[in-house]
């Protein structure tokens, strides 16, 4: 436990020392939010689009999911693949620090950074655009927790499976970008062709977006979506274990 806290703290410090990653993590969702807010304002709800909740209301929980996905799919795998590529993981392996603490520290750091980025996003959205605040805070927090851990685990798997940091970057950005477009945080699901919606169903982000939005808008806890997100987590965790043993 002490080791896990140490590795988490070190990972947080290392993250803070990467100006570009910090900028990317904290700034992009905002920029998009402000552009949207500038263009549309928080228009009154149109029942045919944005699940009937109004554009900015719709996007706030979706962007939280998007931030979590960015850290899990891009920042974490690139970082971990670089560790492997450069022999950092070997160095840790040969020390008293168990590899699980190193990986655990990365997950924990990812989670905490996700919390911070989401808080900033929510506070700004509430303050500037008076978006709807979460109807069920417990539900939103639970969805966030599940989603962040799921994406961080997925990130571990990518970081262990991809051969180089460069490959991890390529794969991560591609996955993230595609998901951003079709899984909810981009075009509203109502305007997407059915074929793309089917593809979106296969992405974890789509299910996390709904899992976040439902309690946020007072639709209650979405059990089926929770099971799907948990399913992604279990698969990612199993793959992580397999690859961690192998590397």
């Amino acid at each position, binding site marked *: 436990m002490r080791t896990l806290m*140490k590795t988490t703290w*070190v990972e947080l410090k*290392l993250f803070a020392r990467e100006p570009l990653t910090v900028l990317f993590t904290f700034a992009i969702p905002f920029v998009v939010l402000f552009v949207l807010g500038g263009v549309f304002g928080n228009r009154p709800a149109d029942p045919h689009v944005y699940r009937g909740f109004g554009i900015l209301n719709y996007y706030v929980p979706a962007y939280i999911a998007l931030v979590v996905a960015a850290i899990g799919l891009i920042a974490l795998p690139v970082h971990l693949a670089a*560790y492997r590529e*450069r022999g950092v993981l070997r*160095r840790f392996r040969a020390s008293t*620090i168990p590899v699980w603490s190193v990986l655990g520290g990365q997950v924990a750091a990812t989670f905490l950074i996700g919390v911070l980025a989401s808080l900033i996003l929510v506070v700004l959205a509430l303050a500037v655009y008076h978006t709807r605040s979460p109807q069920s805070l417990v539900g939103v927090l639970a969805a966030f927790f599940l989603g962040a851990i799921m994406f961080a685990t997925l990130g571990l798997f990518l970081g262990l499976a991809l051969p180089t940091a460069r490959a991890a970057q390529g794969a991560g950005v591609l996955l993230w970008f595609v998901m951003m477009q079709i899984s909810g945080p981009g075009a509203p699901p109502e305007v997407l062709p059915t074929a793309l919606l089917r593809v979106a169903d296969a992405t974890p982000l789509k299910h996390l977006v709904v899992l976040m939005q439902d309690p946020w808008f007072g639709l209650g806890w979405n059990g089926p979506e929770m099971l799907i997100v948990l399913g992604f987590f279990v698969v990612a965790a199993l793959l992580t274990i397999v690859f961690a043993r192998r590397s």
Partner: protein
Amino acid sequence: MGTVIEVQRLHKEYGSLVAVDDVSFQVMAGEIFGLLGPNGAGKTTTVECLQGLRHADGGQMRVLGLDPWKERSSLRRRIGSQLQESALPDRLKVWEALDLFATTSLSRSAREQLLEQWGLADKRNTSFSSLSGGQRQRLFVALALVNQPEVVFLDEVTTGLDPAARRTTWDLIEQIRERGTTVVLVSHFMDEVERLCQRVAVVNHGRIVALDTPARLVEQRAQQRRVLFHWEGEPLSWLESLPHVRAVQQQGNQVEVQGDGAVFQHVAAALLQRGIEPDDLRVERPTLEEVFLQMVGKSDEE
């Protein structure tokens, strides 16, 4: 003084390549044990198996009484490792690395002492990526020692160090030993091995071709002598019939007589008798380096 490391018929293959081919040796408590050998000999593979970083394909190993693979997490707490190739996160600072690798909280004075010892005191706030190659190397040794291990493995620890840092490192390695820590030292450098090691195993193509004290390794071959001089004239093949002479080689006006023991005295006397008085007559004994090259060369021919 008991046995700290016991290796019997250690075997390791990478695909079809046999990297370590049934190697056996023991390391005694408190000694500096050397593994010497050319590139690709299997030294790193051997010590990585001993540290539980690689799974051996065959053979028995005990390090501090533990099975290095099955009990690697217990072993980890009792050994220190400096790997031939590794790195730390670019932006990790020197003092943070020491803190991270210390199993128990490192007191400020203990940390400062390590930094001081390894010449890193003024680099404590420098990030890993800004350290020079030699400074990184020294940081890795400091990290290997931070938990007061019973055995340390040093794999090419002085590679990339300047001559002064090399000497300092040698002194520090001797200090490690004086504190009672056993050291396994992988090296390419004869002077290093000669200076530091109580015993050394010469490894080539995954096998141990010799294992002894550095002095005895030289001595065994030091019976061999080469007598050299210049001579322009008739062939001197008759020298071969002298006692202690093994072979005579003449290339141009350069003569080399190979033999052992008192070969020089016999050759000199015989030459004098025939009125041959070369003014550059001299005898050479092999150095550890030549002994090494000879051993390594010999097993190459097999």
